[in-house]
Structure formats: C-alpha cells, structure tokens
C-alpha cells in the first residue's frame, strides 16, 4: 500500500504481512515501520468511535440483571461528618454439611509429547545404561512419556523394558508392528518398582540384606509369559527381512572416522 504525500511515497506495513500466514486482524494498527503506527493515539481514538458512546450500562427499558447475592444496606458513619451506605452480603441461607476445601485447579494429564521419529516399530539404539549400544524395537510410547521396548529377548537379551527417549537414537530401520497386539497390562504401573514399606529391618535382616541383593534377581513367571506373547508376534516379522535378526543382535559403536553429526542413522 502506498500513499501519496508531499512527493515522498510511504509504504505502509501491515503487521499481518510480516508473518507468513495471512490473518485479517483489523484490530492491528497500520504501521509505517515496525513500532511506528500510521495514526496517532488521538487519531485512533477518534476513528474508533469511543467518543460517541455516551454511557455504559443498560439501555433504558432494559432491566439490569442482578447477581444472586442478597445484600443488606446499612447507613454507617464515616468520620465526623459523612455517612455512607455500606453494602454487605447477607449470610447465605444454605451451607454445605461439611466444609470441603475448594480444590485447586489440577493440571490434566496430557498425552505424552515425544519427538516424531519415535514411531512404534522403529529400531532404536540405546545410548546409556545397562543396555548401551543395543539395538531394540520400540513397541509403544507409554503415558509417562517413557518408551516401551523389547529386544526381542531371544535375539539380543533385552526384555520388555521402559527406556527414556532422550537416551535413545532412532534409526531409519522400521519393523511393521501394526499387527502386534500388546497386552493391556503393559503400562507404567507394571514396570514401576514397588515402594518398600513396612517395619524397619532388624539387625539380622540388615546384614542378610546385603547378601540377598547380591543374589540374582528373580523374574516373575508372569513377566516371562508376557515377554513370550509379545516377542512371538514380532519374531516372525523380523524373520522376513534378511539380516534384520543379525542387525538387532549386533551392538552399535562409533568407529574411527565416524562422527555422529555426519552419520545417517
């Protein structure tokens, strides 16, 4: 838009033209340059027509809606001379039987937001922890935002497990897990460590406890069953692709001359 004025040509900038998506916000002031509006504040006031509005409030004839607070008005003395009407809300007729504190607004849990490359069926490289370097299959993004993965166990010894998405690299290799049905018991609660509550250990138990920890952790047969049911659905899919089984069995490592910012995962 250009206006003619004293020989110089002004090109008006509309803020909406600055951004790529075109909105028709008429409330936006037209600009000469960024931060310099075309119309001055008084000119904008004139243009808006606010000066023509005589009074705010209900139009004659309209009954104003009153709020449902019954009030009492009393005349009160203020200072030496003045009196003013003090409006006080009357005590309500009904009270709840129990004083329940008002619940503060609690954030609704939202579905987890995870980077777009983390799609079920993707092969991931675990970067840290006990499983570092292992290539695993992503099954699902759990509600907590953690990833549910499996080796499968027969291929690389990785069980059904949760993994933090930040400690994982997605490769371009994908497995078709659309046909895989995950049992509904596989959720965050299933994998959470049970909180140890109970009476404090006696001296004997305390010393024995050290020995117990060193013993091998017993995996419940329920877990083994779940592992089988899930893996038996995935293994045939893996078997179809050549070398995929060996690929999942192999560890990932950076070698000489391989730099992660150049590697195409």
């Amino acid at each position, binding site marked *: 838009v250009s206006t003619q004025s004293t020989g110089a040509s002004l090109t008006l900038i509309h803020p909406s033209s600055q951004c790529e998506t075109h909105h028709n916000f008429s409330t936006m002031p037209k600009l000469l340059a960024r931060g310099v509006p075309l119309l001055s504040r008084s000119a904008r006031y004139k243009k808006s027509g606010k000066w023509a509005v005589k009074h705010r409030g209900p139009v004659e004839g309209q009954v104003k809606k009153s709020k449902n607070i019954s009030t009492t008005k009393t005349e009160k003395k203020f200072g030496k001379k003045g009196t003013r009407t003090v409006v006080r809300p009357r005590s309500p007729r009904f009270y709840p039987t129990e004083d329940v504190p008002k619940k503060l607004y609690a954030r609704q849990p939202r579905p987890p937001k995870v980077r777009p490359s983390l799609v079920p069926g993707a092969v991931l490289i675990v*970067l840290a922890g006990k499983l570092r370097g292992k290539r695993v299959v992503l099954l699902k993004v759990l509600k907590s935002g953690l990833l549910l993965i499996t080796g499968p166990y027969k291929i690389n010894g990785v069980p059904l497990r949760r993994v933090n998405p*930040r*400690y994982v*690299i997605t490769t371009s290799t994908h497995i078709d897990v659309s046909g895989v049905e995950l049992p509904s018991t596989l959720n965050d609660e299933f994998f959470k460590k049970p909180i140890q509550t109970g009476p404090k250990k006696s001296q004997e138990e305390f010393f024995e406890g050290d020995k117990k920890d060193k013993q091998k952790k017993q995996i419940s047969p329920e877990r083994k069953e779940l592992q089988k049911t899930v893996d038996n659905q995935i293994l045939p899919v893996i078997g179809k692709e050549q070398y995929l089984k060996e690929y999942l069995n192999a*560890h990932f*490592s*950076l070698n000489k001359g391989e*730099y992660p*910012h150049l590697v195409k995962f």
Partner: protein
Amino acid sequence: MPSQPIRLYTKGVVLGYRRSKHLQYPQWTLVRIEGVKEKTDTQFYLGKKVAWVYRAGKKNKDGSNIKVMWGKVATSHGNSGVVRCRFRHNLPPSAFGATIRVMMYPSNI
C-alpha cells in the same frame, strides 16, 4: 558384554578456558570435538553431555580410581567448530589438553 569395546561418545580435547588475552573465565571450557570443523557442524552437539574421565588417587575398594566430571556442551565458539562447555564444577587446569568424552545423549534424533 560385547567382545570388543563399544564407543558411544565422540572424543574431544580440552583447549582451555574461555578467555581474552589477560582475563579468563573458568566457568566455560573450550573443547575441540573430533571431526567438527565448522560452526554448522556443532549444532548436533549442543546440549549433549560431556565427561572428563580421569584417574585420581588411590584405588578404592572396588578396585578403581577413575573419576568423572560431568558437563554439557553449551554453545559453539567461533567459526571453526570449537565448542563451549559448562561443567558442574569448573574443570581444573590439569585437564587442559586432556581427552574428553562428548556423549550422544540427550538425543534429539
């Protein structure tokens, strides 16, 4: 465990503190990451964890005297791929010239 060691980090070298001629800022250490030669290449490494692994003192009961100082890659430094890192506790000057591990996590791929 794999038969061969696996490396899941890039090597880097500690160049020193961020500094001008007469004044240095020990909060920032400059690290040259292997294979990173331009400013545009540093984008991948920003935010990645960094570790200086060193041996110190007597071996403890588990048989190791290896200690680690952890930090993060903060920003790029200059045009040639050098990177500024910030450690939980500032790196001691004995680390200058030492090899540092630039991990691949937190991952954004």
